[in-house]
């Protein structure tokens, strides 16, 4: 009796039962095709294969106005992160320990995310303008088109991203740990400082990383609320590409920014265990 081996025209991996490997392939494939390839393509685009040096665009990208934009992005990113974390921590603390309407308030925290950034920034713009409600009642807050306006706008926009992880980590603290601290002789503030804050570090770290990444790469905030002096790197990349149509320079700026941000996160990761912090989200 002979065994007939039939060759199917359909490859075997397609006829197998769907396993985890297939599911992973979809995710990895998606990311590779739409994220890794485009970024790598940027690297190619940023190099100068014509006359002159290969890294000509990089030389321009690291000077003058662009250097300022890089510096500004990271400074704004840092300040926004600090401001946002401070507000988010107080809000999350209130939600966990003092509020009995947690679900409602959490919803209110998230609701702004349903509204497009451009609309929210535009709202702030009108609110702070001399003809806005504050101006009408004689309370002129002259911050429009300054760094303050940009940071206020960014901190406001990214607040929900910070509240949620901090809320989660505060919520995970066993109430009896706090009672124990009080019984052991620590006052309220001492307990917050010695017990609550250390135990919510994962949430603070996660919130900080998320806000920092989002804020540093902001485009709309500085575009709407800032002036020419508030231009961040995303604005410079957009301008170089869309107005000056200098693809090579724009690509070089994009590559530098990406490398800097990754380096920043890596350095941060060396201090805090991000995997643990982000795993708690």
């Amino acid at each position: 009796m002979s065994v007939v081996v039939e060759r199917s025209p359909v490859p075997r991996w397609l006829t197998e039962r769907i396993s985890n490997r297939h599911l992973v392939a979809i995710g990895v494939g998606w990311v590779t095709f739409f994220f890794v390839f485009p970024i790598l393509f940027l690297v190619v685009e940023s190099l100068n294969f014509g006359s002159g040096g290969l890294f000509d665009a990089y030389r321009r990208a690291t000077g003058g106005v662009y250097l300022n934009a890089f510096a500004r992005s990271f400074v704004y990113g840092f300040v926004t992160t600090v401001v946002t974390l401070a507000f988010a921590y107080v809000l999350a603390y209130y939600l966990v320990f003092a509020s009995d309407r947690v679900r409602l308030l959490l919803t209110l925290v998230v609701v702004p995310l349903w509204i497009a950034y451009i609309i929210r920034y535009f709202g702030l713009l009108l609110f702070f303008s001399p003809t806005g409600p504050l101006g009408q009642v004689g309370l002129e807050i002259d911050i429009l088109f300054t760094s303050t306006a940009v940071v206020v706008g960014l901190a406001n926009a990214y607040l929900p991203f910070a509240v949620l992880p901090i809320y989660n980590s505060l919520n995970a603290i066993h109430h009896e740990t706090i009672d124990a601290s009080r019984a052991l002789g620590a006052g309220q503030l001492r307990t917050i400082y010695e017990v609550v804050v250390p135990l919510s570090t994962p949430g603070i770290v996660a919130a900080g990383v998320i806000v920092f990444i989002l804020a540093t790469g902001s485009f709309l905030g500085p575009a709407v609320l800032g002036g020419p002096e508030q231009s961040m790197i995303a604005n410079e990349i957009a301008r170089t590409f869309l107005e000056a149509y200098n693809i090579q320079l724009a690509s070089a700026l994009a590559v530098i920014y990406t490398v800097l941000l990754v380096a920043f996160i890596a350095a941060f990761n060396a201090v805090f265990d991000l995997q643990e912090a982000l795993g708690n989200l």
Partner: protein
Amino acid sequence: MLEVTGLTKYYGELLAVDDVSFHIDEGDFVTLLGPSGCGKTTLLHMIAGLREPTEGQVKLRGEDVTDLAPEDRNIGMAFQSTALFPHMTVRENIAYGLRMHGYDAEERDTQVQEFLELVDLPDHGDHHPDELSGGQQQRVSLARALAYEPDILLLDEPLTGLDRVLREEMREWLMTLQRELGVTSLYVTHDQEDALSMSDKVIVLDDGQKQQAASPERIYEQPANEFVATFVGKSTRFDGTLRSVDDRPIVETDETRIVVGTNDRATNHDDGEAVSLFVRPEDVDVEPATATADGGTTTTAGAASAAPTAAATVENAFPGTVEKIANLGNRTEVTVALESGETALANTARFPNIAVGDEVTVTFDSESVVVV
């Protein structure tokens, strides 16, 4: 030492603790015993200062501490969850209270080491709590609560959640530790074995109200009311009316009558009063019915008792049918459905010569009856 007067707590409309008063003497181990939701934890939290009482007063060493924050009361506290600080080592956990109470670094080190040894964990100082077993964690939590020598140790079900063997071991260990240090302790539990085996005094709480405060023996032998009688230990129960016949108190139920003793477990009730009777299973004997049917000349002594069991000499003898026989290891618990309608519980020898479905006679001494 600790004096609680009229302590009351409302949660909105809900009355959680209702006018509870008691005191604890220096060095005593007192248990607050009650079912879950009876208000015992709320009561403990008010004594600790973690909750504000609606009314009432807490005095510690003669000082009114009712309005003091927990950190100003010099109390030690252990929790069911251990509540150890997960971000600190065992050593740092124990040193925490010492730091807050103003011990300097050197004193802290000696005190921490001393208490690590006291709780049998001398080499575990640098571990984190999550590297320890449940029993070890609870010992650390006790060391932490005691290291700065508080006026009183408050224990909120610290042994709940440990398995049976460990629990008994920890009970033993905790009692030794408490006696050794002589620290006044208030222990909250829903476990009657904890309460009866460890305490100098037991305070039974139900529905926010104090039901009885007495020695463990008295709580068991002479429960103050129906709740205490049913919550602490098992019993055979009869409901009826108290009457006096030939100068002897008896209780008439719908179907039968029970002779009641004249000791103080049965007094303090008036003729004609509706009462409940409780008899502990160890006071109840069960014998095959044949033994009493022929006038009590012979007994097969199927039950545990060595006492004379002839029916004529026993005042309280009731016929019934064996419903269940449960071997509980060191003893056997027999459940008998009495003809009069009640269910009787009796402890017998490990291997009684009766079986489920047997006709039996249940007997008990009138002096063992508790009337509430």
